[in-house]
């Protein structure tokens, strides 16, 4: 029992970690990676797919090099987050859920990011940007365009 537990312990813990690593490396969890992960851990592809599609920060479709996640929850909604989304849509030329053709930006809507005291807020590649106004958007985007 102890031994099989230990094996299981290593296996599953590494599954989510491996998928998070793939997400960082490829901007998504591609199908062939899921197959390889399943093989290496000796579990079904279905199980890997189940984990890959459960979490909102893992994506099975390719995301851009910079991922923008605008908070859509109530405290940000009360502070007019729609004006931020509208400005991002205008600046990037894409709708939420899409990636720019040059692969530089993906625009996503997300649930509460815990920055309600700085609403409206968004994450860009995990960095927090709060107290947003439409006027601030262009400058923020520019800082991620370099490189």
């Amino acid at each position: 029992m102890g031994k099989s537990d230990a094996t299981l312990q290593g296996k599953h813990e590494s599954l989510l970690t491996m998928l998070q690593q793939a997400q960082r490396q490829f901007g998504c969890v591609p199908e062939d990676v899921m197959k390889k992960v399943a093989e290496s851990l000796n579990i079904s592809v279905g199980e890997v797919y189940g984990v890959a599609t459960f979490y909102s920060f893992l994506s099975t479709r390719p995301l851009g090099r910079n991922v923008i996640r605008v908070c859509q929850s109530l405290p940000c909604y009360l502070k007019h987050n729609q004006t931020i989304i509208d400005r991002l849509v205008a600046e990037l030329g894409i709708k939420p859920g899409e990636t720019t053709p040059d692969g530089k930006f993906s625009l996503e809507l997300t649930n509460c990011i815990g920055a309600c005291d700085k609403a409206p807020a968004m994450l860009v590649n995990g960095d927090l940007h709060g107290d947003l106004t439409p006027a601030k958007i262009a400058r923020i985007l520019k800082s991620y365009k370099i490189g």
Partner: protein
Amino acid sequence: MPEKRFVLKNCGVIDPRRIDTYLEQDGFRALPKARQMTPEAVIAEIKASGLRGRGGAGFPCGLKWELACKSPGDEKFVICNADEGEVGTFKDRYILENDPFTLIEAIAIAAHAVGARTAYIYLRAEYSYLLDLLLNAIYQAEKAGFLGDLTIRVVPGAGAYVCGEESALMDSIEGKRGEVRYRPPFPPTQGLWHKPTIINNVETLMNIPQIILNGASWFNQMGTERSKGTKVFSVSGDVAKPGVYELVLGSPLRELVEGLAQATRVKMMQIGGATGRIVPNTMIDTPLSYETILGAGAITIFDESRDVIDVVYRTMQFLAEESCGKCSPCREGTEALLALLERFHNGEGETRDISVLEDLSNAMMLSALCGLGQAAPVPVMDTLRYFRSDYESRIKQKQGGMVR
């Protein structure tokens, strides 16, 4: 009772990147004291303090520790739940970014009390920008020799509200889909990898060092009969001063909402996030405690310009999206509630829809597997109780506009 900075006493005082600034306060004085005590004595002190879980459920902290301590097994775990995903909550973020050292000291005390050599901090994906700060604090505590044989690991989440629920959180640490487990067994007997485990919220743990240093009888002077100590609140929405405030438990809601956050023209308050209560302005003198209303301390304020149905509809949208899908009362129930609320939102509600909302809400409360599904109908039930005319007006609109 005025604002009291007890849990937050080091926030803004110390440099969260430098352990020496923490030591200049009373940092790492509780841990050696606790280690000189037997685990049983530490647990007895926490039990006597009356400290209850600050994540929303309010389970007595000392009892949880005692159960894990007494559970047989040579390997036990401590988990710090830093996955605050409840809408409107950001107090743990504020704590983590300002005072990671107290948390680490508290985790080390908890590990001593239950007999754990490994501890995990499950950090929500949305807070990944705090990862380096946290790792740095652990490294400094380790290097200074405070951790002994204890390993503290930070596990980054991957974006799932339900993982703040303790059994889903453990599945996530195990690398699986974060789905809720059937209980019993409870974590103190069979938790992470089936081993005895305690899971405590960030804020709960933040209380521990001061209780050890000053004693249970000092701590339990604060608060009400069944709510001891202070509570850290996250206040947002239609207020002049959104932010994190700490009050002695039992303080009136008004002091927080109108006094500290400076709200005016308050119509209603959502207390405890998406699965929390929605109460009208007439209840603003309610004391904040486990006996009344508390949750995890998220308070979102809506002024008189806000539409009740819009708020409930958006709340349900969130819950339907974040249901883990394991049990049908929650998976199907939240979708069905959302569909009904959408009709009221569009002015297409019918009289019978109200009784369907009520029946479905009651069924979900009784049959859902975890707190998410059981509490998902709360915003519906509360608004039907306090703002029923807002629903009814959406029916009248339709009848007025339709020819039958």
